[in-house]
């Protein structure tokens, strides 16, 4: 059995809105092995995105432990979390979140720039990654010149830029039509052959292709 790339033990996340306390995650314990396509499903407000943010080192747990790639995130400083995200995690967002003033190629090069990769090397890798997602001819196009599906492919290429062991995708097909969404699901499944891909989704097709599915309800893992 492979070593889990993600392990949470009693992970809790509490948000405060004024005097109100919202318990987004309540003692979630899970393990995700590598490689694999993991689906996190559940109704809106069940804590899916909060879980993804904790695993992606974007947010800190209020309680419990989150460990990714063998490292516990709770003790890390903000700068260490930034460096950790840069090297260990690739993000794919529902709204693609490409930088509008950069071309597709430059968007893919960006995480490598943060990681100190030399310009020639990052350009070559970005071109290769765009080729892999079928967008080599659109490398010089800006996001506004690309369709939704194309933008999400660029975002997936960007998530793979630093060859992270973990890719996190938050509703990656949520803004796409079903046919385009299907192609993105296939692409993510292909990506998951070499690493762990955790996808927060409502899409049944995606959940069906997953090697493991976690159901969240009211901040807790459902049986």
């Amino acid at each position, binding site marked *: 059995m492979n070593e889990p790339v993600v392990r949470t033990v009693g992970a809790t996340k509490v948000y405060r809105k004024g005097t109100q306390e919202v318990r987004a995650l309540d003692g979630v314990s899970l393990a995700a092995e590598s490689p694999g396509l993991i689906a996190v499903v559940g109704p809106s407000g069940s804590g899916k995105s909060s879980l993804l943010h904790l695993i992606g080192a974007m947010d800190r747990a209020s309680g419990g432990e989150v460990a990714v790639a063998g490292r516990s995130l709770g003790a890390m400083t903000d700068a260490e979390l*930034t460096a950790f995200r840069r090297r260990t995690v690739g993000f794919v967002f529902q709204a693609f979140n490409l*930088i509008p003033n950069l071309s597709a190629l430059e968007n893919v090069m960006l*995480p490598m*720039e943060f990681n100190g990769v030399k310009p020639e090397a990052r350009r070559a890798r970005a071109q290769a990654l765009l080729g892999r997602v079928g967008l080599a001819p659109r490398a010089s196009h800006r996001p506004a010149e690309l369709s939704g599906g194309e933008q999400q492919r660029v975002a997936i290429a*960007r998530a793979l830029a630093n060859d992270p062991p973990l890719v996190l995708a938050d509703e990656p097909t949520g803004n796409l039509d079903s046919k385009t969404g299907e192609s993105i699901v296939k692409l993510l499944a292909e990506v998951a052959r070499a690493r762990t891909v955790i996808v927060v989704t409502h899409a049944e097709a995606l959940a069906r292709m997953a090697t493991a599915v976690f159901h969240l309800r009211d901040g807790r893992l459902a049986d």
Partner: protein
Amino acid sequence: MIRLGLRNAWRSKSWLAVTTALIALPVFLLLVLQAVSGAVERQTAILKRTVDNTLQLRARGSMGHVNMEGNEDILPQRALGIAQRTTHVARVEHYLLAMTPTEGHNFAMIVGVNPGETKRLESHGEAGNPRIIAGRDLTDADRGQRVAVIGQGVARWAGISADKLGEATLTLDLTRTHPVIFALKRPPVTLRIAGIYASGYVFGDMQLFMPLDAFREVYGVPEGISWLYVQADSVDNVREVEAALRRELGEVADIIGPTAAAEFEASATRTVRQLAAGGAAIAAVLMALVVFFVTLVNVRDRTRELGTLKALGASGKAIAASVIAEAFALAALGTALGAALFALLGNLFARPFFAIGVRPFLAPQYRDSLADALVLGGASGAQLIAWAALAAVAAAAIGSAWGVRQAIGLSPVEALRHE
């Protein structure tokens, strides 16, 4: 990330136009102020070249004329050495003076001066350069000789005309008195008249200049100085020279300083400098404020983008670089536009600006003369570019600081949720 910041500056034409114009206006104001200030500085420089920067020293409470009732005290000889050794002194000239009665209550001035030195005319401290109209001036060959040049008034009194020069003489009787002249028990002296000068005014023409060493012999004054003229090397140093002389000779000498340049320096130039500096500071603050608000708006507009960058692993330094680069790009464009406007319209605006913004703060006597004399907009291009660049850098750095802090401090999750 710098590239990203630079591109963000261009993200919308209307955004670019508004921000650039907002930054350009204070830049324009700053450059106009610098032009006005520069013009006043140049006017001061011209004044410094033409202005009298010479101090006059006399024995304390005395006119320093060796035979004038109650005014016969003269400066000690050591005053000459002290003046010559004083810092920032460019030239020192010393005179001996006496008076001789002419007709009625009138008199002529007898001046001992080293040949080649300025023949200053005694007229309430004014200095002048008499023009030889007949014969010749005193030369080094005349040192120790009984020879003189005289003003045309003295020539008329003595009956000496231009055609008689060379053979004409004038005899001084040192025993003759006058209500303010006392007799000196010295033998009369006959001087050969080498030249006649014109000074442009009556009393100035009633002087006789003879070699200083001859004067000492004739009047029996082996040492001492009637008037000592000390010229500072620059009008800027007049006050310093005067202070040094007062320290050394204040006990024995009255020191009369020129006032025009110092007064101009103190009133007009300083006032304009202060106004320009104040205006420049306001312009710089305006620029920084514009950059401040532009950066805040930029950070707010780009919050989601900044969140994405943070999620991708951008460090605080990288985030700061993108925000600062945009601030610098906008400040640079605004400065370029302000400089271009200044090049096109600077002269048009500078004069009315001077009239409205500077003139009321000047001393009344300089208001019209300075406004008329100013050559506005003549500052060198390099100087203007340096000013504009400095202003742009300062505004971008100071104005963007808070926005950069906000951007770095953003939580990636909250930034990504920002609508």
